[in-house]
Every structure is written in structure tokens, then in C-alpha cells.
């Protein structure tokens, strides 16, 4: 009697299908069957669904990183790790380094003022009811993106570039917390953030803002939503809450 090859028995232990000849032999041969059973014990111990390659990504709660930082003494922080806004003293000191690009020097973030906005937003909390405003569903969608929350924010939405009669506009559907003071503003950025175009104030819900004629969306593909304090300063606050890249 011709036994199955050792390789075929290993594959049988992994529950791979065998040729008809091997399968028929295995069904009748106690020796080969015992061999498969012995090899399969290791397979069953390890080829177990909970040990399989990860397929689902879930965001762990912030305390997981806190525990890692505490155990390792590492002071670096993951970009999306929320820093409690309840410690305003922690932002009042270190002096900002010069901005790396002269072209964005005017975008010096207004940190302390931002803190008031953040605190107000935290107080209001939650996602407020969406207020439908000036949605304009007409025209053809020529580019679109989802707006994904940045870091710890729970602001998100969609943005669509629509074109009608040669005139382009950006439709922004924004889901974001109410701000106690300040407002949301939408911008188009270069991917490397060396330039930005302010498009205007947006609210929770549906908004339509016109796009400047001649603006090349290939140069400025990134839709950015920021929180701006009511301070009369027209430049970007440096506090972005949601972004997406038009395609």
C-alpha cells in the first residue's frame, strides 16, 4: 500500500484539500490518519481565529497610551492623542520656535486665544443638531472628498466641488460641535501647506461657498476646516478640525 507523502499529510493537517487518491487512502489508512491527527494538534492550537492577522482597526481609548507612556517613561505623544484642555497653564509658556517657512510666518498660531475657544467648545460638547442652510444641489460634481476628523476632533463631513455654467462652488456638509465662541472657516491648502486660500465661514450642516475663478484645484486639493476665534485676525488660526483631499 502506497502511503501519502509526508508533505501531503502536513497539508491534510492544515485542512487543505487532497487529491482524490490521497483522500481515499487517508480515509482507509490508520497510520496516515494518526499522523495527520498528531500534526493537527499544533495547527489547531495556533490557527485560531483570535490569533489571525488583524483585519479590523479599532481606536483604543486614550488611557492605553497613557499607560504605555507611564511604563516606558516616553514623553513623545501620538499625533491623535488628546491632551486634556483642562490645563491651560500647560500652554502659556513654551515659546514657539520660528515657523519654518517664511511664507507662513503670518500664520503664527494664537495659542492662548485658541484655548478659550477650545474650552468653550468642550463645555458645549457633543455634536449639535445639524442646521440646513443654503444647500445647492445643482451643477455637476467635479471633485469630492470626505472630511476626516483631525486627531481627537469629532468634526467630520464631506466636500464637493460643483460646476454650473463654468462657475465652481464648494459644497461643505459639516458635522461638528457647537462653538461657544468663534466660528468654522473652510480653506483650500496645498498638500505641503505652503499656501492656502480662505473660502469663508461655514456652519454645521450644509454650506455653499464660491471658488475663486482660475484657482487650480490641482495645486490646492486639500479642503481644511478650521476653528477661528472672533478676534478680527483674518489669518488661519492654526487649529484645523477636519480635512480631506479632493479627488
Amino acid at each position: 500500500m502506497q502511503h501519502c507523502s509526508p508533505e501531503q499529510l502536513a497539508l491534510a493537517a492544515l485542512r487543505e484539500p487532497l487529491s482524490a487518491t490521497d483522500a481515499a487512502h487517508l480515509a482507509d489508512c490508520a497510520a496516515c490518519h494518526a499522523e495527520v491527527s498528531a500534526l493537527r494538534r499544533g495547527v489547531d492550537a495556533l490557527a485560531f481565529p483570535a490569533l489571525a492577522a488583524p483585519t479590523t482597526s479599532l481606536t483604543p481609548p486614550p488611557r492605553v497610551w497613557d499607560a504605555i507612556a507611564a511604563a516606558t517613561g516616553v514623553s513623545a505623544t501620538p499625533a491623535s492623542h488628546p491632551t486634556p484642555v483642562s490645563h491651560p497653564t500647560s500652554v502659556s509658556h513654551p515659546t514657539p520656535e520660528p515657523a519654518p517657512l517664511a511664507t507662513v510666518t503670518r500664520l503664527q498660531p494664537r495659542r492662548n486665544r485658541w484655548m478659550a475657544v477650545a474650552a468653550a467648545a468642550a463645555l458645549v460638547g457633543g455634536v449639535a443638531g445639524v442646521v440646513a442652510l443654503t444647500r445647492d444641489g445643482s451643477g455637476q460634481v467635479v471633485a469630492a472628498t470626505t472630511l476626516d476628523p483631525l486627531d481627537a476632533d469629532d468634526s467630520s463631513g464631506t466636500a464637493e466641488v460643483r460646476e454650473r455654467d463654468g462657475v465652481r462652488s464648494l459644497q461643505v456638509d459639516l458635522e461638528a460641535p457647537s462653538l461657544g465662541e468663534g466660528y468654522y472657516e473652510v480653506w483650500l491648502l496645498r498638500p505641503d501647506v505652503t499656501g492656502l486660500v480662505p473660502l469663508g465661514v461655514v456652519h454645521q450642516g450644509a454650506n455653499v461657498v464660491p471658488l475663486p475663478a482660475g484657482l487650480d484645484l490641482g495645486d490646492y486639493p486639500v479642503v481644511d476646516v478650521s476653528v477661528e476665534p472672533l478676534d478680527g485676525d483674518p489669518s488661519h488660526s492654526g487649529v484645523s478640525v477636519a480635512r480631506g483631499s479632493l479627488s
Partner: protein
Amino acid sequence: MTALEDRTDLYGHHVETGRTSLRRVTEPDDDDLARRFRDGDEQALAVAYERWSGQLYGMAVRAFGPGPDAEDVTQQTFIAAWTGRAGYSAGSGPLPAWLVGICRHKIADVWAKRDRQRRQSEAVAADVASRPGSHDDVDTRVADRVLLLGELDQLGQPQRGIIELAFFEDLTHVQIAARTGIPLGTVKSHIRRTLERLRTRLEVDGAALQP
């Protein structure tokens, strides 16, 4: 349709707003990140966490459901990886795969701990003798898992990669050959030798087989 991959921020310095960190950073690719991680760059640990904690936590939640065990496994994985980073080398495979391997160990450890606790609580239960031996099979596999994960760590490449594709990605030997470019016959003989090695380990050190 995605967020900016490199999460480039507007400014060159960090602002602790809790909403966005305004650092101008060019995110390192995985290889560069792995080198920095091994060299003890603390920022690399934070970036690795940013990049892979979701998958590892997803894996732990699949094993235990959301809760303290899943969180503990995730944090223990990163802590063990950081403290044991000197043991990581290019031969260990990509950094995320190495982290997943550590995560498997941590999951198996929690199972084993739970199993010990269950045995202890049963041992103090008066009716332990009257219970049917329905747990014996499970007990054996819990112990085997810890043992065999350790044995996998001892395998060199490409044996380890091949058996991991078979075990954890459920690929057939034909698919493994296609994925890795290793000849079919070589894949089969590596699988055979690895399964023999695992069997030997179980026979020597494994939990007692039930008759």
C-alpha cells in the same frame, strides 16, 4: 477621498490644544520608522502607536471583546516591544508584523491566566470532583498556544513567514508560493518540517494529551 496621509500640520511647532498637533512632520515610512524604533527614538514609539495600535487593539478586542483585557494586551504589546526593541532586527520581518507577533503572545498569556484562575476557582468549589471533564480539551489548547507561539519565535525565515501565512492568513500552500515567490515544493517541505517541529515540542513539553 482620504485625509492627508502625512497629517502635515500648519506650523513647525507643537501646540497642545488637544485638537491638532501643529507640527510640520514628514511621516517616516515603515522601514525608517522601524530603524528609529530599534534605535530608541521615543517619537518612533509614538508614531508606531499612531500607526498600528488600532489594528492591535482590534485584534485584542476580537479575542476578548472591548474592555480591560483588550486594553491591557494592547498596552503590554507596545511596552514589551519598546523594552525589547534590541531584539528586533530586519530578520524579524516588518515592524507591524513583529508587533502582531508580540500581541499574539500577550493574548495567549491572558488566556492562560484566565484558565489558571478558572482552575483555582474550581479547585475551591466543592463540586469540582463531580464535574465532567468538558474543559480538558480547552485547557490543553490554551497551554499549547503559549508553548507553540514561543516555538514559532525560534523559527528562522522563510519557515516562519510561510507557516504564519498558513496559520494566520489562512493561505493554501499554492497561495503562499504565489505570495512569496518561493517554489511550491520548498513551501511544502517547510510546512512539513515546521509541523513536525511543533509536534515534537508538544510531545516533549506540551500539556498531557487526553487518552
